[in-house]
């Protein structure tokens, strides 16, 4: 019912230390990790094929919630879709690989195998939850469609699972399953979206801007649910958002994207507390805050690049970078791993040349 519990202090933050063994066998049973290597995605435009992702490498540890933040057009959704090998035409994956434990390289999957992987192994929650449901069918019927598509034999059990998931998220399961999407509020739909992503026991869940269209209070609820379910079910979660706050609230690890590159990646607390990349720093600074000195916040100059305006050579961020050096114009900064943090910036590298280590040669 209507309980606003209060006094919840710091929500428990798990140690991102769930170290899985070699992930062999049924992926559904174990928590998968994801390794994206040199992923390049291009879109066909009147100006030819332009890269929306320019060689992204990213490792998602099993059992973590990883946030991907970045401005509009930085390629977050494209990356998220690539994990399901679902880049929509006129886009296509032009190179690289997406290794998911238990599935292998998703880029190589096709046809029925790909279809079965989606939903069963990979759950996807849409940004526009209100539009991610078939308006003509009740949720329950859509659930059954899902079950049949994945050859679930025990459909009543599936319905039971769905109900308990929904109830777990604070909804009246039976009623929701009996409803059409227009009879549900935005927050309820988003919960339904999460339920559909999880009901087949997918262990890798990708949420693309799950709260953008929602109200503040509803957003808080959904974020809490995401966090709790993640822990209860032992998931690997990837959450795409453009809101630094949202990412900060729930994620363990944070990847910052810019112009189709991951420019910084590391534990959320650290990335926020001591950002290395000038872009990350700028982003954090640009957030108006409820406490502290407001005069310290300032906007990033310039505007984010689009497909056509991404610099052809050198660092993608060079045009807006306060620390720009000459080398930035010609050489693309390599991703450098350091204490579990990855940064791709010449300036950051120059600042701490000591204990650097290439992630891969």
């Amino acid at each position, binding site marked *: 019912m209507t309980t606003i519990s209060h006094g919840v202090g710091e929500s428990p933050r798990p140690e991102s230390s769930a170290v899985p063994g070699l992930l062999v066998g049924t992926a559904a049973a174990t928590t998968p990790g994801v390794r994206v290597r040199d992923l390049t995605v291009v879109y*066909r*435009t*009147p100006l030819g094929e332009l890269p929306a992702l320019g060689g992204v490498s990213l490792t998602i540890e099993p059992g973590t919630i990883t946030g991907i933040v970045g401005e509009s057009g930085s390629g977050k959704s494209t990356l998220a879709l690539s994990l399901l090998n679902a880049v929509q035409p*006129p886009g296509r994956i032009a190179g690289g690989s997406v290794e998911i434990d238990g599935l292998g390289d998703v880029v190589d999957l096709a046809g029925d195998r790909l279809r079965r992987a989606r939903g069963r192994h990979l759950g996807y929650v849409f940004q526009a939850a209100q539009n991610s449901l078939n308006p003509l069918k009740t949720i329950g019927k859509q659930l059954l469609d899902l079950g049949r598509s994945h050859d679930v034999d025990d459909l009543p059990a599936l319905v039971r699972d769905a109900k308990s998931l929904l109830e777990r998220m604070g909804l009246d399961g039976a009623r929701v399953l009996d409803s059409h999407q227009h009879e549900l509020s935005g927050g309820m739909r988003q919960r339904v979206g999460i339920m559909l992503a999880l009901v087949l026991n997918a262990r890798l869940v990708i949420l693309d801007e799950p709260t953008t269209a929602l109200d503040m209070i509803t957003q808080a609820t959904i974020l809490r649910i995401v966090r709790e379910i993640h822990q209860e079910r032992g998931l690997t979660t990837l959450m795409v958002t453009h809101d630094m706050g949202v990412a900060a609230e729930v994620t363990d690890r944070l990847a910052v994207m810019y112009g189709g590159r991951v420019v910084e990646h590391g534990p959320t607390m650290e990335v926020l507390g001591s950002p290395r990349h000038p872009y990350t720093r700028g982003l954090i600074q640009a957030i108006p805050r409820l406490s502290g000195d407001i005069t310290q916040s300032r906007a990033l100059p310039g505007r984010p690049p689009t497909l056509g305006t991404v610099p052809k050579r050198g660092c993608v961020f060079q045009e807006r970078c306060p620390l720009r050096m000459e080398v930035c114009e010609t050489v693309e900064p390599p991703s450098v791993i350091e204490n579990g943090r990855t940064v791709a910036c010449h300036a950051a590298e120059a600042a701490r040349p000591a204990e650097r280590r290439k992630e891969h040669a």
Partner: protein
Amino acid sequence: MSVTVPQTALGDTRAALRRNFWRGVARVLRRKPSRLAGVVIVAMFLLMAAFGPMLYPAHLPRDDNALYAPPSFAHPFGTDFEGTDVLALVVTGARYVILTGLVTAVITVAAGTVLGLLAGFHRGRWDTVLMRITDLQLTIPGLPLLLVLSTVWKFQGPLEMGLVLGLLGWGGIARAVRSQTLSLRERGFIEAARGLGLSTAHIIGRELLPSMAPYIAMNMLIAVTGAIYAQVGLFFLGVLPFDSNNWGVMLNLAVFGGGALTSTAALPYLLAPLLAILLLTLGIVLIVDAMDEIFNPRLREE
């Protein structure tokens, strides 16, 4: 601190934009050569309508000894009941048909747009009244009404014909324009214009209309075809005043006078206007197809 903008630069960008648009058009046309064919066909008919009658003497020559002559080099589509060259009839008949089509389309689209805009923009009582009138127009069956009207009214020439067809056909467009207006009206820029105190004339003429221009243009093309068929159909039914150089009259005489459906002698006389209609349809369909793509980004697959 004002920065002076050289007028040329401004003009340049605008010209460039226009160039871009035409380049886009050219690309859409080039992507499927069939569309170019559409443009060519329609252009051909327009030329026919404009200059066709000038190619022939005012009274087309007849050959008393070659009634319903089969196709030959001299008469590619044979001759009619009087020995007149069918091709000449089709060519000289294009003007009436196309002129009516254009007049109808202009009236349909103009009336539909104005009423739709008024209804959508003013909402309230205006809207109710105008939409009731529109409903009425849409409810009264058009073809039967035309049949009745043709007995009451002697249609003198394409202008009158177009006027009547136009007055019977604006309902659909009015409704569509109204709903477009209603949705555009909710868009920020219209509201902003009102908030700025800009005149209604400005808002409708400069803000609303241009946004609907592609839609209206497309409707206009469709209205042209509709009008052509309607009038040819009426001529075919034989309820419109006779005019020998007219496609519909040709159909009528071929079928009911020449027995084109029963024997082959008058078949060319029937087929020539039929082919003309088919060809014109094809041309317009191809252009509409291209327009669809030019104006509708959803269909524009780059």
